[in-house]
């Protein structure tokens, strides 16, 4: 237990100490929120979908949590390069505990980032139906964070160095983001696109947040919760397995 705690704490300390990184990682969501939120607003309104800022808010929060959690998992590569990973791998602690500590730490950081962006959304004029919706939305943030932190660990354990990083970014992270319905409604899409968006776990996370925050959703919230729970459990198992197989 204490090993999980200390590794969780380490992730948090690293996060708090890299202030420039915190600010930098908020730049992209703000760009999406403010530029797209206000830029596409009139078109969206004319199409009869209401306020785009309202619509894109949960999408941008989801994106922040996605990026932050998946990168925390890939931080494994960084630790591999700079050696700290070895220190944890030779310690008499089961790899499962190490993996859980890291994943929880990464997920916690991702949720904090998500909360910061939520605050920015509210500042920009985003409003929810009721305030009770916010804790429920945080629940979905936690689910998204766990799913993708585990995915990050699974990938991070399988790559040898940072060379594959760009590949993961372009062929995994960005598609997950763009296909999730963060930026557009998932209803009335062409068949193929509709199919692909349903394969994307982030779709259900963002849809879930939209349903609790705005009362509009493409799927049933219960489906959102069950898909996230199922995918999350599978990825945690895969991540733990891949992590246990690391050789240096």
């Amino acid at each position, binding site marked *: 237990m*204490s*090993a999980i*705690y*200390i*590794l969780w704490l*380490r992730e948090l*300390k*690293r996060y708090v*100490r*890299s202030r420039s990184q915190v600010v930098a990682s908020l730049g992209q969501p703000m760009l999406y929120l403010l530029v797209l939120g206000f830029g596409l607003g009139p078109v969206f309104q004319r199409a009869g979908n209401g306020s785009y800022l309202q619509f894109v808010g949960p999408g941008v929060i989801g994106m922040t949590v996605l990026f932050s959690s998946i990168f925390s998992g890939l931080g494994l590569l960084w*630790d*591999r*390069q*700079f*050696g*700290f*990973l*070895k*220190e*944890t*791998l*030779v*310690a*008499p*602690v*089961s790899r499962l505990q190490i993996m859980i500590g890291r994943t929880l730490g990464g997920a916690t950081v991702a949720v904090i980032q998500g909360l910061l962006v939520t605050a920015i959304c509210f500042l920009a004029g985003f409003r929810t139906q009721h305030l009770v919706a916010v804790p429920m939305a945080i629940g979905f943030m936690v689910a998204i964070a766990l799913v993708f932190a585990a995915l990050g660990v699974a990938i991070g354990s399988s790559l*040898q*160095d*940072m*060379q594959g990083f760009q590949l993961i970014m372009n062929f995994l992270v960005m598609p997950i983001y763009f296909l999730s319905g963060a930026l557009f409604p998932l209803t009335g899409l062409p068949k193929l696109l509709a199919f692909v968006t349903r394969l994307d776990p982030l779709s259900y996370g963002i849809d879930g947040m939209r349903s609790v925050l705005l009362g509009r959703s493409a799927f049933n919230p219960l489906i959102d919760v069950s898909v996230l729970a199922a995918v999350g459990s599978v990825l945690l198992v895969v991540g733990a397995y891949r992590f246990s197989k690391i*050789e*240096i």
Partner: protein
Amino acid sequence: MIRVQNLVKSFGSFTAVNDISFEVAEGEIFAFLGPNGAGKTTTIKMLTTLLHPTSGSIRLDGLDPRTHQNEVRKRFGIVFQDPSLDGDLTAWENMEVHGVLYHVPRKVGRARSEELLKLFELWDRRNEQVKKFSGGMKRRLEIARGFLHTPKILFLDEPTLGLDPQSRNQLWSHVKRVNEAERVTVFLTTHYMDEADRVAHRIGVIDHGKLVAQGTPQAIKDQTGTANLEDAFLALTGSTIRDESANSTDQMRQFAKMWSGGRR
């Protein structure tokens, strides 16, 4: 304490460790010497559960690192050849994390950390982030951390690389102290032959993945008919210079250096 039989490790067509066998008795200081790329670090990685051998058997305190990973990990401590500190944490926090990972009771951990940080003259800077440390200080911290828990076997992979003579002296006297007082078995590698001659009870020389000689320092000198260990080493391994090709880690580090250099 350590028993290695017919150990082989190949990476693709390259055989890094080629059929070596040796034993290290309890309470012994064993120096494992060899030129760059001879297979020293690969052997240590196999002994410390980080790599799986291609074939052959290893026993640490009677246990197989392949099947009893955690049991084996409880028995050894290691100072790696390349850095393994967390640069974002302070020196004290690095010690703290290590203490927790190795189940050192909190109070004992604190007391020992203080003692060790003072011994290696890092106490005054314990609350600074490690990334701000010089190479020598990082090295010292790494060594101090390696001594935090009391293992049965201590692996030291080129521990004195980049240390000044004062710190080197401090290190070896501490190694001797724990070896004598706590019967810790020590398995070390170094490029400084005088150090090996001074501290090691027995020596093994590895070259191109093969163990070419083993015995007491005196026996090795006698065997080669040389006056000191350096000459004996050259007689055994030849005088050609070996190059290790830079691996991705080195390339990455260089890249990171370039980056952090640019930012400052």
